[in-house]
């Protein structure tokens, strides 16, 4: 209601129920922080001749990453993840808007349909995409049958296939936070803007987007993070040419058995993700600042 006054949270003793967090904290420190610290330590060690770890401090692993080959993989990963995020946003926003503005009794079903792919294993679904995209696959079969192309297109094992796979895999992560944001947007605000001479474009850019910014930021973060670290999708759909950081880490750990270099790559990836998230949130906080406390 318009007359609602933002209430401040009660300022009691700050930590009366802190002990409730203890089991979770313990779990996280044991199984997340400790291994992470270990990986961090390994990233400054060297590789033994036969693949073991030699505990000698060196920053060589990080310096090695300046090699153009690694730079290319890094840039490629950023590009694929950004493109995936952008495509998911463009596809997901109208979808989320439609779901949030459809009759209330339909919404649970529509959301269920968005999440339906999660009921099947991700690996299986990625294999399914291989069947769809390969030379004698569904897409090429259809294109040939319709006479749109003369020879089957090379779809599988291309960057396009990787981005298709990533968009497919992470679109629901975009739709859900956007749905929540649009659902909370008062439809009367759209009518008010329309009444105040705003065109459809102006309504979108001046009212809808600013007011759903928390959902947009949330969705982008949720898609970008798993996208940039993914390795199943580029591994199965991308082939050797479309390697991403995730594949590099897997390669260093399991194939080359260079754990120190793999650990260094892992930490660079973490740095990129954290930087990206910080950037998003700072932008998001500015764009949606007045909405805080809603």
């Amino acid at each position, binding site marked *: 209601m318009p007359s609602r006054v933002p209430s401040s949270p009660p300022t009691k003793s700050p930590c009366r129920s802190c002990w409730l967090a203890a089991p979770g904290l313990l779990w996280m420190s044991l199984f997340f922080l400790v291994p992470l610290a270990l990986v961090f330590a390994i990233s400054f060690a060297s590789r033994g001749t036969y693949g073991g770890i030699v505990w000698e401090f060196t920053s060589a692993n990080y310096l090695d990453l300046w090699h153009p080959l690694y730079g290319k993989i890094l840039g490629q990963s950023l590009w694929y993840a950004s493109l995936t995020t952008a495509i998911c946003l463009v596809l997901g926003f109208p979808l989320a808007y439609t779901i949030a503005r459809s009759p209330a009794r339909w919404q649970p079903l529509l959301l269920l349909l968005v999440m339906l792919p999660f009921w099947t294993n991700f690996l299986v679904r990625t294999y399914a995409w291989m069947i769809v995209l390969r030379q004698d696959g569904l897409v090429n079969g259809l294109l040939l049958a319709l006479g749109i192309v003369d020879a089957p297109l090379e779809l599988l094992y291309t960057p396009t296939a990787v981005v298709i796979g990533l968009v497919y895999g992470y679109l629901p992560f975009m739709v859900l936070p956007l749905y929540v944001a649009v659902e909370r947007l008062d439809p009367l605000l759209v*009518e008010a803007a329309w*009444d*105040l*001479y*705003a*065109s459809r474009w102006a309504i979108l850019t001046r009212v809808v987007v600013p007011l759903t910014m928390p959902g947009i930021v949330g969705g982008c973060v949720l898609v970008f993070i798993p996208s940039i670290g993914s390795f199943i999708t580029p591994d199965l759909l991308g082939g050797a040419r479309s390697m991403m950081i995730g594949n590099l880490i897997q390669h260093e750990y399991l194939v080359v058995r260079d754990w120190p270099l793999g650990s260094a790559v892992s930490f660079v990836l973490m740095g990129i993700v954290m930087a990206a998230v910080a950037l998003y949130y700072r932008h998001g906080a500015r764009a*949606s600042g007045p909405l805080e406390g809603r």
Partner: protein
Amino acid sequence: MATSSTPPFTSSEQSLSSTPPTIDIRGIVCRHGAVTAVDRVSFQVRRGEFFSILGPSGAGKTSVLRMLAGFEDPDEGDLLIDGQSMLGVPPNRRPVNLVFQSYALFPHLTVFENVAFGLKMRRVSAALIAEEVRQALAMVKLTGKEVRLPAQLSGGEQQRVALARALVNKPAVVLLDEPLAALDQQLRQAMQVELKSIQEQAGLTCVCVTHHQEEAMMMSDRIAVMHQGRLWQVGSPREVYERPRSLFVSRFLGVSNELPGTIGPSVGEDRMFQPSDAGQHPFTVSTLSTEQAGRSAILSLRPEHIRIAKDRPSTAGPVLDGRIEKVLFAGSDMKYLVRVAHDRVWETRMATGTSPVTFVPGDAVYLHWSSVDARLFYE
């Protein structure tokens, strides 16, 4: 004075001036599925007029407002603003602005940006926007609150921003949807006076939708009473209150004390009226009606027209026996509920302090009134 129970009100008012009315609604119909929300409604609104559409919820008044704003299109009929048909014209191309019941202020924009929104969309220069917004905010007494966000304002202040956001555009018509409904009683009464003075000062043409009869009567130049999708009566507040054309209008605009009976022979310029209740004596009613004697009718009286006496009044005129049922003290008023028949209680009102006599429940009293104040409705 004679009325029928069917509502068709036809707009017989003629605008004598040569300029077209600001709003001219011609037989609009709006259907929502099987429901006819608005049924052949016609009326005109003159420039500078405060026009209220009054009716209970579900009467179709909000649909009329939404059709004026452009959010809905009528299924039949035409809707003209300043002589131009608005059919098919989207809201952003119409010279009207709506003040929403919930205000619908943009929560991410400051007071200034909210008020400036319409001007900005019409690409008015920044300097002019600053000046216009300053004037509008001064008019609604919000100078100094420009950089606040809506959430930082009180309900009354938000209401003013909503008003400023509409009138800054100098629209041909300001549409008000239950403008004061979200305010508490005291603020509401203060805003009624203020809204009216802003409207007069700025020369605004307003169409206001409300279910609050007192608010409509206090602010409006004319009122249209709407019920079940149709207009039942259009006229000045006094006209619809004092000369309702139907029982519905009479009941909706205030307390209607009713008594069924039959109309009798002429007595001079008046007619006799025989109440159905056996215990009551016939009395005279002032009516122009030429109905046949014996026809059943319902008599209706406003509370303020009834006087109470302990002794049978000596003056000739309508008198009814009654017994005080309840005495309600309402500050400036004293309300007496008086039983006039075994199934009928009337409400009378007397200003506190005007009558030296007070009554207690159980007192036998006489109710009397001037025969010109009673109104007759035929079934």
